[in-house]
């Protein structure tokens, strides 16, 4: 399941790269056709100016995003989006839920009875896995950009943008980490992958639909804070579906945003500790 999640993520990133590369020739063709039409004298000069302004901007935007380094940035943003976050959630829930299905926790607890240690080990594993997932997605976007640049005869990037991509990675990773931790906790408490996905997904939906726009709740809303890390639509409904708008906000990462997001993670972990301490593991009774 974890492998499926990773492959799905790579597939989505590459598909995004391909679709953007397909847009550039289409835009250039449209421009050339219109230019040809103009030479026939069938449109006014004002119409021509409007067309050039609109389409030049579009072509310039596409050419900018076709830079392989920029593609790494796109996929970093993708990892911070609802889709990237959900991939991390699925990965975390699948990993933890499978261990319960296999009865592995009982095997571990009869060797290490300190349950908080077991819980901590799972959370550290998930945190590391989200870093790996986000890095794989960014790397996939970067490599896809290089390959597609060669295929479409677009000049490859100098690589100067790669540092910016790496700087963007924490912005993508922090939201993925928060919701992966919540999914992990949900899976551990209910001993089910589905419960983990439901807990994280439910929080995203409830937060996006109900809390973000309600006065004081906006300050503690994860979606509101994630919006400071990656561009989030201000529409609650849209923010449920797709976090990023146009890229990464300017400036550094604010400590308050990180504190609120990690605060949510800490509350979830505390709840898990309280439940795990009292939970009975193994087959019910005989």
């Amino acid at each position, binding site marked *: 399941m974890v492998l499926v999640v990773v492959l799905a993520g790579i597939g989505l990133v590459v598909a995004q790269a391909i679709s953007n590369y397909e847009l550039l020739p289409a835009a250039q063709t449209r421009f050339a056709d219109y230019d040809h039409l103009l030479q026939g004298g069938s449109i006014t000069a004002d119409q021509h100016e409007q067309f050039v302004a609109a389409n030049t901007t579009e072509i310039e935007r596409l050419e900018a995003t076709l830079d392989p380094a920029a593609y790494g940035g796109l996929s970093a943003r993708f990892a911070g989006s609802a889709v990237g976050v959900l991939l991390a959630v699925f990965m975390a829930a699948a990993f933890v839920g499978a261990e319960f299905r296999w009865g592995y926790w009982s095997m571990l607890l009869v060797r290490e009875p300190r349950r908080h240690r077991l819980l901590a080990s799972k959370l550290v594993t998930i945190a590391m896995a989200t870093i790996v997932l986000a890095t794989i997605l960014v790397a996939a976007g970067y490599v896809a950009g290089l390959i597609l640049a060669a295929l479409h005869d677009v000049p490859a990037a100098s690589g100067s943008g790669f540092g910016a991509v790496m700087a963007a990675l924490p912005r993508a990773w922090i939201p993925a980490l928060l919701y992966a931790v919540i999914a992990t906790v949900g899976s551990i408490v209910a001993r089910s992958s589905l419960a983990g996905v439901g807990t994280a997904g439910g929080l995203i939906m409830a937060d996006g639909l109900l809390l973000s726009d309600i006065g004081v709740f906006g300050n503690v809303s994860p979606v509101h804070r994630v919006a400071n890390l990656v561009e989030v639509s201000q529409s609650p409904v849209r923010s449920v579906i797709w976090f990023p708008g146009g890229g990464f906000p300017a400036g550094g990462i604010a400590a308050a945003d990180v504190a609120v997001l990690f605060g949510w993670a800490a509350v979830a972990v505390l709840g898990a500790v309280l439940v795990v301490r009292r939970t009975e*593991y193994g087959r019910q009774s005989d």
Partner: protein
Amino acid sequence: MVGPNGAGKTTLIKTLVGLARADEGEAHLLGYPVPHTLVQALPRVGVMLDVPGFYPRLSLRSNLRMLAEGLSPGEVDGALNTVGLLERAGSKVRTLSHGMRQRLACAAALIRDPALLIMDEPFNGLDPPTVRDLRQLLAERGARGKTVFISSHQLEELEKLCSHVAAIQRGRVVAAIALSELGGTSLEDWFFGLEGWH
């Protein structure tokens, strides 16, 4: 330890090894009160649960190495050899039969040569040759002065293997006997002769 379904055998074992918490009363494992000092007791205890769990896509050897951190590869292979699974050490757990999984669980319990071995229904689902091998293995441990605590419905196997038997019902020990005291009575006759046990 014998008793009917629902008597509390598995619950008692789970309480002793820290998988469940008792509502009342005290439990001690190797003299250590549980669950507060399980950390001291469990390194000297091997536990074979009735439904052992392993990573199905990992090999037998990898699973044991994860459960026995700090042991050398030779010690891991030695445990697999003890239960006759060394030749399958590189196979994935998902390819094993139920009996082989039970043997792997036995290897996991034995891997640190514990002073006390606790086994919950170890004979369940095993074919006769595997039952015989397991019985021999446990008898050898007994001969070496190691304690083996078994919960089972297989009265014939227990009679061949054990020195003492306790019967449990509704969470309480209702009878206990050394097999040497049975005289000419079989364990099965003793068990069914207990009051309210039919």
